[in-house]
């Protein structure tokens, strides 16, 4: 029974983590940016979801529509912030040292922290209506909220969707070409700048979607951004930066390690995540799914 509980808790936590980390790894894969501001887009997504759900409720729409409201919030966040950030800020730093880009996104993280406070204020928002939409599921002696199961399904759909889009569509193959080498792709006539904008927007959408899906479980308030970014980095480092399969396996490793620790050795909860990361890095310094690359001179 304990194993089943660890498995269920680990998979639920991993699903949430995967949606956050998927956007992070996609942006790194295409743009080679370690986006510290990813957590801020997650937070904006949560705030936007709170506003959209409140708007739907004020129009007397049934609670089921709140799922659509959350999706719309993620789309709106990406549509508004991605062009502004990528075209208005990041593109001026392409080709520069990666460390500089990390600093730029860190500055963006700080700016967005204050922007969310200016727009939504410090008061918490609650959007718990969707959380009880799917009832409860009984697993042995425990009850799980149906919303958690929906989160697992959503994560699987996101993973399969992104994999399919990258590997089975023309646009996806162009994105893969840019990931492989933007210079070669550009010389073959690919509009690399547009691919960058598209990939960044999609990454932001995934971050905002994760925030929107998290909003019903928490009080949406200042400080959401910082909590999520560190553990997301652990996931993508375990899986290999830029790898979608890696993000999925990394999220599962982190989720299961954490769940096992909480159930068997709670004092090691935080430690367990980083021990898992350290073990992976000892044997696979590039992460599980990152191929060793020759250094370009």
């Amino acid at each position: 029974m304990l194993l089943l509980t660890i498995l269920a808790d680990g998979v639920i936590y991993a699903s949430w983590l995967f949606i956050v980390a998927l956007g992070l790894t996609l942006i790194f894969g295409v743009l080679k940016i370690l986006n510290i501001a990813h957590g801020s887009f997650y937070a904006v997504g949560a705030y936007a979801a709170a506003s959209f759900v409140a708007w739907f409720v004020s129009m007397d729409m049934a609670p089921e529509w709140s799922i659509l409201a959350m999706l719309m919030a993620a789309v709106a966040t990406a549509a508004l912030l991605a062009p502004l950030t990528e075209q208005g800020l990041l593109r001026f730093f392409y080709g520069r040292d990666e460390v500089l880009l990390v600093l730029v996104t860190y500055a963006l993280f700080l700016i967005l922290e204050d922007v969310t406070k200016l727009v939504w204020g410090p008061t918490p928002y609650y959007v718990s209506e969707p959380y009880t939409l799917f009832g409860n599921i009984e697993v042995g002696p425990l009850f799980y909220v149906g919303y958690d199961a929906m989160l697992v399904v959503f994560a699987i759909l996101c993973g399969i969707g992104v994999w399919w889009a990258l590997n089975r569509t023309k646009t996806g193959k162009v994105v893969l070409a840019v990931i492989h080498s933007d210079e070669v792709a550009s010389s073959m006539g690919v509009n690399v700048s547009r691919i960058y904008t598209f990939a960044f927007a999609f990454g932001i959408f995934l971050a905002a979607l994760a925030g929107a899906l998290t909003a019903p479980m928490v009080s949406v308030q200042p400080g959401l951004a910082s909590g999520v970014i560190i553990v997301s980095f652990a996931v993508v480092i375990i899986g290999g930066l830029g790898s979608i399969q890696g993000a999925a396996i990394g999220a599962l490793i982190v989720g299961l390690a954490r769940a096992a620790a909480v159930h068997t050795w709670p004092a090691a909860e935080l430690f367990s995540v980083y021990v898992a990361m350290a073990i992976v890095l000892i044997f696979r310094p590039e992460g599980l799914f990152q191929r060793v690359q020759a250094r370009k001179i």
Partner: protein
Amino acid sequence: MNRIRISRKLAAVAAAASLVAGLSHAEETFRIGVVSFLSGQAAESFGIPAVNGAKMLVDLFNKGEGPAPYNKVGFGGMKIEPIYVDEAGGATKQVQELRNLYDREKVDAVVGYVSSGDCLAVAPVAEEMKRFLILYDCGTPRVFEERSYEYVFRTAAHATMDNVALGRYLKAQGVDVKTVNYINQDYAWGHDSLRDFNATMTQLYPNATTGQDLRPKFGAGQYGTEISALMSKPATVTHSSLWGGDLQALMLQSAPRGLMKRTQMVLSAGDHVLPGLGKKMPDGVILGARGAYGLMSPDTPLNRWWFSNYEKRYDVYPVQAPYRMVQAFMGLKLAVERAMQANGGKKPTPEQLAAALKGSEWESPAGMITMANANGHQAIQDTAISKTKFSTKTNRVELVDIVRFKARCVNPPADMSSEEWIKSGFKGAQC
């Protein structure tokens, strides 16, 4: 003739000088650095409500609109000039900010700090600089138990009171505790709260055993796994000192899963989430507010004045954080005025202020605050514990079955550390 002219000139100069002196006295201000969380996770629950309380009080005091004995303009006639500083950024930053407040901003006193880590870091700095500091909120007992201070005070009781009162409440309500689970944040506040409640339960319920001891990180947000662990081995009582967004998330995630139906949840500092959570807060949760605050505050003229003014101004009733801020300001105001009485009406020095506040006692909206411990530097106060019950009539969570505890029943005496006191079986407690 010349003599007359000279004496007229001298008289004019003297008159002008006295006018300037009078003006300068009237215009003299008392500058206070107010440090609390204005951003980050602690802002919504603690920092901003506390700063709101300070802003309101400064306005009322500066207009001379406080009730007696707080009815003099400002502090002893000097207008209060607050400088608000964000506590976010960690202890190292706060040490620098404190130095800036004293050296560059030339503040006369600093009132601040929610985080126990920040309190432990800044207190020795104020002492070293020989500048006046009031810690208004942080809960760790270690501040004055690990060293003594001349210039540093804490005008609120520490966390031992909250956890001893919770244990005594369970006993008073006849709860038969056989096992206890814990979920506390993995930092100083969580550890100290766990230690005090565990030691209290050992004294009050010697046969009770400890089950789960969960320590999620601060700001974890996701508690699904912890809730499973608490539900799979439910205890009679589950103790938590979680606060702010973490506590709100725990309540939102555990209520639909039925955790509160399997265990009696007891929260050492839970009142501040009630206005926001509303009916999402389950009924029957036992909670404290780290004092007789908010809906557990006493029905006194001073509290009615404070409660109604705050509610009118901010459209929400005051919870624990603004109460602790207001009791710090009231204590400081009376100390300044006492010191001025003693020094002939001049602005007091840090030494004079410290002498005036040391061992003093004053009435706050939450009851009497007595600087009884740590050689007159640490406050003790009455507290209360209660149970949640949502009222459709008032459309808010009400607190029922309130039990009040006298300060000397739930706070350690001056000559013992909190841990020693609990382990001694609450020696000398006056209940």
